[in-house]
């Protein structure tokens, strides 16, 4: 029983993280019809960014925030410079573009950051909590709890706000959404990342090459997605009409977790 619980806890933790990654992946696919092979690299940016910024002296929350913004910026650039121009290309071409982006980001990251393993401290300590014969780390609770909050928030956003519904409409049928007078000329995709630092012990390194990490069964940094409340409302005139349905919106608070696979 204890063993089952232990497995359950770790399964839920890892599952929560993967669910968030998958959520972002699905949002992108629904909005842009693109399989984003660079998804893992956004995770990596958040993680490594947080690490390096924290090491440079910033507080963890601030470092995480900036790292998230950096990831969002990269996502925006990727969309603007790579996906947008290739609109209408075959699935293979789009896949190859995101794969190319993934390779590119990895290549740059290895220069900007480095190729070493890194660690971050946990939020509220790393003393395991005993629960039903098994133990669970406080950070795991943060992960699972945070994930649930994010899912709920995204659900509310998509179902209850006008902006969210516009995103869904765009995902369902882009042309129709535009034709029914989407004033923003397309809607930003509410794709946001959330990162949190997590202290891992030395047995769980972080690796710049997320995809390799997955393959070699190293611990995985994962990003979590949250929504930014409110979006950016404002008169269309100020927007310069450049909004597109699948542009990632901003995000703040972040979290990044590291788990043994």
């Amino acid at each position: 029983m204890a063993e089952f619980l232990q497995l359950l806890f770790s399964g839920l933790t890892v599952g929560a993280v993967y669910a968030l990654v998958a959520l972002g992946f699905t949002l992108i696919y629904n909005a842009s019809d693109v399989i984003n092979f660079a998804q893992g690299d956004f995770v990596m940016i958040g993680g490594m960014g947080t690490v390096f910024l924290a090491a440079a002296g910033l507080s963890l929350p601030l470092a995480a925030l900036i790292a998230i913004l950096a990831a969002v910026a990269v996502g925006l650039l990727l969309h603007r410079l790579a996906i947008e121009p290739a609109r209408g290309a075959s699935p293979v071409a789009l896949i190859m573009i995101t794969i190319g982006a993934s390779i590119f980001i990895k290549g740059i990251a290895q220069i900007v950051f480095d190729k070493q393993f890194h660690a971050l401290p946990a939020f509220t300590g790393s003393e395991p909590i005993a629960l039903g014969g098994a133990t669970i780390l406080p950070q795991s609770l943060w992960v699972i709890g945070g994930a649930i909050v994010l899912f709920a928030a995204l659900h509310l956003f998509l179902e209850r706000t006008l902006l969210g519904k516009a995103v869904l409409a765009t995902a369902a049928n882009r042309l129709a959404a535009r034709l029914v007078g989407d004033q923003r000329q397309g809607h930003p995709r509410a794709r946001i990342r959330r990162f949190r630092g997590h202290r891992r012990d030395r047995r769980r390194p972080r690796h710049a090459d997320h995809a390799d990490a997955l393959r070699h069964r190293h611990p995985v940094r994962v990003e979590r997605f949250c929504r930014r409340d409110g979006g950016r409302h404002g008169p269309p005139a100020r927007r310069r009409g450049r909004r597109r349905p699948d542009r990632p919106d901003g995000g703040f608070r972040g979290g990044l977790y590291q788990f043994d696979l």
Partner: protein
Amino acid sequence: MLAGALRPRLATLVLLALVMAVVPLVAPSAFYLRVAALVWIFALAALGLTILMGYAGQVSLGHAGFLGIGAYGVAIGPAHLGLSPLLSLVLAAALSGIIAYVVGQPILRLKGYYLAIATLGFGLILALIFQSESAVTGGPDGMAVARLTVFGWRIASAMQWYWVSAGVLLVGAWIALNLADSPSGRALRALHDSEVAAAGAGVDVAARKLAAFVVAAIYAAIAGGLLACMNGLITPDAASFMHSVELVAMVIIGGLGSVLGAVVGAAFLIVLPQALTALQEYEQAVLGLLIMVFMIALPAGIVPTLRKWLMERLS
């Protein structure tokens, strides 16, 4: 994109042969011959892939897996089974074809993204097998490969490898060109454009797709075998996702469905890193950037674009 370009079949072969003849004359050292041999070998694999992706329109993101089968085949044959490297190469190619035949039937029912991911998964499985079965494959460190001997003649020097790989590529190109201008080739190109209409014309779509898949797998296996023999060493890396991506990039950058395109694409992606050794650190970033730029700016590929440009100039 193939339409109208099929008649100069002989022209393509002659051009290729000419280039092959000229390179050794201008190559400053054996190193360059080795690089050229690498180009011919990867061009062979890319050629098979262009038959699958360009003619038949079926994407494969796991093609390096077949390369690995050929490579490990020529390694394992002599080392564990006592077979000659040449026989091992033939058997490995056959095995690759058989595996493609078996795996292709369920996989090729998928389309678009699903097919891409399924082939990706298949490639990963093979790479994993090569990595894990250490007793047979030497694990992550790979294994040594015996030198290729053809009827007593041991192929070892760069010059010898250059001519062997060039010759094999020429034969491969000839076969691919034959296929393009034939009933089977038309059937493949038809099902690429519209499966339902091809079926409506009597084409057995499933069987044709499978045939293309098998042919592509055999091409890749032969290329893999040659690669392993030339390098004298094989590691599981050969079947990695990165290699599969590079193969697809070669095909698309060079020109989907074009025989010359496969060669140009291979040359591009192999020569470039060599030329950029000064930028060693940036190699990955540059590769990624190149892939993106070409997919966005030159989606038709180098050879078809050049051809079109030439035709416009001449008319």
